[in-house]
């Protein structure tokens, strides 16, 4: 039965589920819009989706908080949420599936066997390597073993969230579990990173739709889809004009902050963070952290948590900790200066004395 449904095209599954053509086209057009594709590409996506067989997706959860999956399943438009699950055949997700234990492991193994070379692996969470990977095991297997076994026959890997993309919180100093991102383990498969803590739901779904319809999207150096991670938050921020005129909020919720002034001085990492928060936004396009008065933390960047010093230190601030070494260097410099001057004086005096001696000697001669 499961196999029969999987063999159906996306169009067949959608119509069986009562999704209207209007809703479907709306979804395709908005996805094309999110992906910054030409307006006509909405129809291309629609046509492609209708005839595409639903790809098998295996969703692996490792060192994570389930926030990314929460984000995906709480996409703001219910039809979108339904649709993404109608467009893919989610054959394994130990958080969402009813089966547990041996049955769920069997479902994963069956999906791998039936779709070898064609299925998509979505990974959520970092992979611990410390002490043989004992910090995350499922069914007696370590996370790294499960990832290697599952990725072997995958067509591509999609890392959802910063933890699987770059290590995220588990990777943060001192990284007691030896957590690493998926890219450190799987190096021979197409890899798409959809970082964020969590990523924007529409970004996750649109990336999956693009993969299903048009293949691997254009990626940046960190394997992020350029359509969503091509610009900095700062470039698209509605507070940017205040940065340009030099109006900055000095404290949280001060008059400037409430008037929409730039949060740069409060540590905003928008200028070095690539994501679509400022344009796509969250909760049905309601707002994003900066709009709610909090600076961007840079959650979609590699080494999130450890990079750029404190969350609340401005990007322009030095990361030198204390000025004491510079003060000590100044002291040493002054001492060397005193020594050099003393040496110079001694030489000068010696020269004067020798000249005087020469004069006396020449007079005596």
């Amino acid at each position, binding site marked *: 039965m499961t196999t029969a449904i999987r063999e159906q095209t996306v169009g067949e599954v959608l119509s069986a589920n009562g999704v209207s053509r209007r809703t479907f086209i709306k979804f395709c057009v908005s996805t094309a819009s999110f992906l910054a594709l030409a307006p006509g590409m909405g129809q291309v996506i629609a046509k492609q989706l209708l005839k595409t067989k639903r790809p098998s997706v295996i969703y692996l959860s490792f060192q994570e908080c389930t926030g990314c999956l929460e984000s995906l399943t709480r996409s703001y438009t219910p039809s979108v949420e339904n649709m993404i699950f109608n467009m893919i055949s989610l054959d394994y997700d130990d958080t969402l599936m009813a089966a547990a234990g041996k049955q769920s492991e069997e479902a994963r193994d069956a999906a791998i066997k039936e779709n070898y070379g064609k299925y998509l692996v979505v990974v959520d969470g970092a992979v611990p390597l410390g002490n043989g990977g004992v910090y995350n095991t499922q069914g007696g297997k370590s996370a790294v073993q499960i990832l290697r076994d599952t990725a072997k026959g995958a067509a591509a890997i999609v890392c959802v969230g910063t933890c699987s993309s770059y290590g995220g919180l588990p990777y943060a100093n001192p990284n007691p579990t030896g957590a690493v991102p998926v890219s450190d383990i799987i190096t021979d498969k197409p890899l798409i990173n959809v970082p964020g803590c969590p990523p924007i739901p529409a970004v996750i779904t649109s990336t999956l739709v693009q993969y299903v319809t048009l293949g691997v999207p254009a990626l940046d150096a960190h394997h992020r889809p350029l359509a969503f991670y091509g610009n900095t938050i700062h470039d698209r921020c509605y507070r940017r004009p205040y940065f340009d005129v030099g109006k900055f909020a000095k404290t949280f919720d001060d008059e400037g902050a409430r008037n929409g002034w730039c949060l740069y001085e409060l540590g905003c990492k928008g200028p070095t963070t690539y994501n679509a928060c400022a344009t796509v936004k969250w909760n049905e396009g309601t707002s994003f952290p900066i709009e709610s008065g909090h600076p961007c933390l840079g959650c979609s960047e590699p080494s999130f948590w450890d990079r750029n010093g404190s969350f609340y230190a401005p990007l*322009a601030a030095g*990361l030198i900790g204390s000025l004491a070494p510079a003060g000590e260097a100044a002291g040493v*410099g002054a001492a060397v200066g005193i020594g050099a001057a003393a040496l110079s*004086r001694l030489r000068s005096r010696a020269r004067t004395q020798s000249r005087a001696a020469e004069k006396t000697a020449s007079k005596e001669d």
Partner: protein
Amino acid sequence: MELLEFARGPALKVALVVFCFGVLWRLVGTVLLRYHRHLSEPRDGYFKAFMLGLLVGGSRSWPHKQYIKRTGYGEALGYAYHIGLFIVILFFAPHVLFIKSLFGVSWPTLPSGIVTIIAVLTFTLLLAVLFRRLAHRVLRRLSNFDDYFSWFVTTLVIVTGLMATAHFGARYETLLAWHILSFDLLLIWYPFGKLMHAFYIFPSRIINGYFLARKGAPS
């Protein structure tokens, strides 16, 4: 460690250490040098000689009317780009935040657009300064590596700063890292090249003025 973190962290730390060491070494070493002993009494007393010395510190900072036709252009260029540098360094908001992060003091800033325009003008003036140095026969003969390298590190900071502001040529974090690294380079070169004139210029004028005033020379 990313390039930006390296620039803001270890590289900046090393640059500040070298800068502080070098500046104090050269300043203290120079101040404590053995001066020629003046055996005569000052013409109008020590205090007046000192006050006249202070006056010379200011009066010699302005072109002499006898030579203004010959030196006016060079001095105007010099003044203009120095003023530009001061405004860009001291009144651009991220720079003030940088200073605040190191010393805990801050002051009002200018709009970024205005600072950017001033930075572009300053860069243009720095190009004019270089052109003048190359075109002027005497100046060219007097110039050495120190002159050109000091010009280079100063201009590099301005260029990378403008590139970072305009997001031109690379990603913002890379450009910002280049900008901070170029500033780190400037700090390291500062005490050992002619950039050190910032510390020497007024004390040396005042001391020279004092010595001349002792002899009764007019300020």
